[in-house]
């Protein structure tokens, strides 16, 4: 009986039943938007691009939301795949601009609006962090984005990258220490 309702809903789109789809999507949106946004922020040079790509991810997710089969895999895995592919497509489409823009001090340019001092400091720190991240290998960059951006656990990262969970743990440990050393050197002038 439920499947009949589901079938007719998909065919006819009854507003009352559509309301539950909207509620479900809203709940998942609130949970995953910060993670997807932060993951993309690690991968691109500026906030505007991160927002544009985040919008694209959720528009793609919305267009396929009704057909997503929860029995086939978690929503997190699904939407994260969409995010990764969206970033890859962005890189391919903008291959000539992919070389990160750097001013003579090696800092990444960002289009941040004026903000309170503490936010300015944090923005500067994040810019420096990303400049050190760009000096890592591609794999290390991707794993750091997945860990600190998308907040994936090591098992999920291992599934996404094809590495073992143990390898992921080792890479994260080594990479965090590498970044820490670079960051402290910069902070200490």
């Amino acid at each position: 009986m439920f499947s009949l309702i589901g079938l007719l809903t998909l065919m006819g789109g009854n507003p009352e039943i559509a309301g539950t789809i909207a509620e479900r999507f809203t709940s998942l949106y609130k949970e995953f938007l910060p993670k997807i946004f932060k993951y993309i922020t690690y991968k691109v040079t500026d906030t505007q691009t991160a927002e544009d790509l985040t919008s694209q991810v959720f528009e793609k997710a919305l267009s396929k939301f009704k057909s997503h089969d929860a029995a086939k895999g978690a929503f997190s895995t699904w939407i994260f795949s969409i995010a990764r592919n969206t970033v890859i497509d962005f890189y391919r489409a903008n291959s000539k601009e992919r070389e990160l823009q750097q001013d003579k001090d090696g800092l990444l340019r960002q289009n941040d609006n004026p903000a309170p001092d503490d936010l300015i400091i944090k923005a500067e720190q994040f810019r420096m962090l990303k400049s050190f991240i760009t000096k890592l290998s591609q794999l290390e960059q991707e794993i750091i984005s997945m860990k600190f951006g998308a907040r994936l656990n090591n098992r999920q990262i291992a599934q996404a990258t094809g590495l073992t969970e143990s390898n992921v743990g080792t890479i994260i440990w080594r990479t965090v220490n590498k970044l820490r050393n670079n960051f402290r050197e910069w902070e200490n002038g």
Partner: protein
Amino acid sequence: MDNRQLEMERLFAEELDRLLAGEEIKPAPEAGEDVSAALIFSQQIIEITPEPNPRFESLLQAKLLSELAQAEAKDNKWYWKIMPRQPVWQAVTATVSVVVIGLIVWLSGIFSQMPVTVPAALAANAATNKAVYAAGEPVQIEVTLTNNTDKPLTLKQFPPIISLMDTATKQPVFTFNNKGTTVARILAPGESAAFSVFWNQRDVTGNLVAGGGYYIELEDLDSQGQPMKLTLTKPAEFEIQPPASDFGDIYKTIEINQSVTAGDITVTLKQLRLTDKGAFLEAFISPPPGYNYRADTDYAAFVTYYIDNGWIKYGGLSTYEKSRDGMAHIWYFNEPIPPEAQEILIIIKNIGEIKGPWEFQITLGQ
């Protein structure tokens, strides 16, 4: 790697996940200074990672919900206007309607002479030529569709959609969907249609898939043009063995032996070894001014490279060994170099604090 190192990694991984989940943590004393320092830095990363702008978040949410509502309104068919509003009565009405319509169709027999798409009457069989494959080995897939009824049977799309599914995640890693080259096909009673494809074990991004279990799903199209899964007569499962190494299996070695001197330092690129997952680059670097092979000076070298004048790629820092005569460096590029690539430009940007560059143009000759 010693047990102490493994223990530190384990403690760090556990505490980091708790940090990322928003918990306040206090590393245990036995975790050690290194773990504590790494966690403090991780906390700093979390604090400085920008949050999405609230205005962006709410505007996007409103936009998406508006699009959802518009899509639903567009799809709203006439029969919802006569359906009850409560879901339980909608279920009752829908059930009764289907039973009544089914009775009418059965009694009329109006479809008895026409070709029908009846998934249960179609025997779909998919099989691979082997049960276990080495990493990167082509997988041959044979598909046979047989009409087991005594009436003509229509396949909306032939060949059907073939999906290679990851057993662990139950998600497709690659799909053969020959849009534009498929045709509808009618199978006579008892007739079979067969075809085969080769899968190169690469996913939609072009990367080799991980070792593990996979299975095949087939889809035809229903009367609405939507994908409809075909039930296989038996599961089509196979296994891909993981590569011998996390770095991939070496399939080509290119002897380079090119030297470039800049700033009193000579860098000699010796060899490039290509694997299905990446590449190893080996070099020997002559002693820089003031070199003391016993001293603790950092001489890790950072490299970037370009394949066929493509976009910049980062090879990262080298691992190296010092000797009296100089240093043996090795880099691992963790992206495979495409088999059809012709040239690679390698630039060593710096060796420790010493700025380069040292540039090498290498013909891959593939």
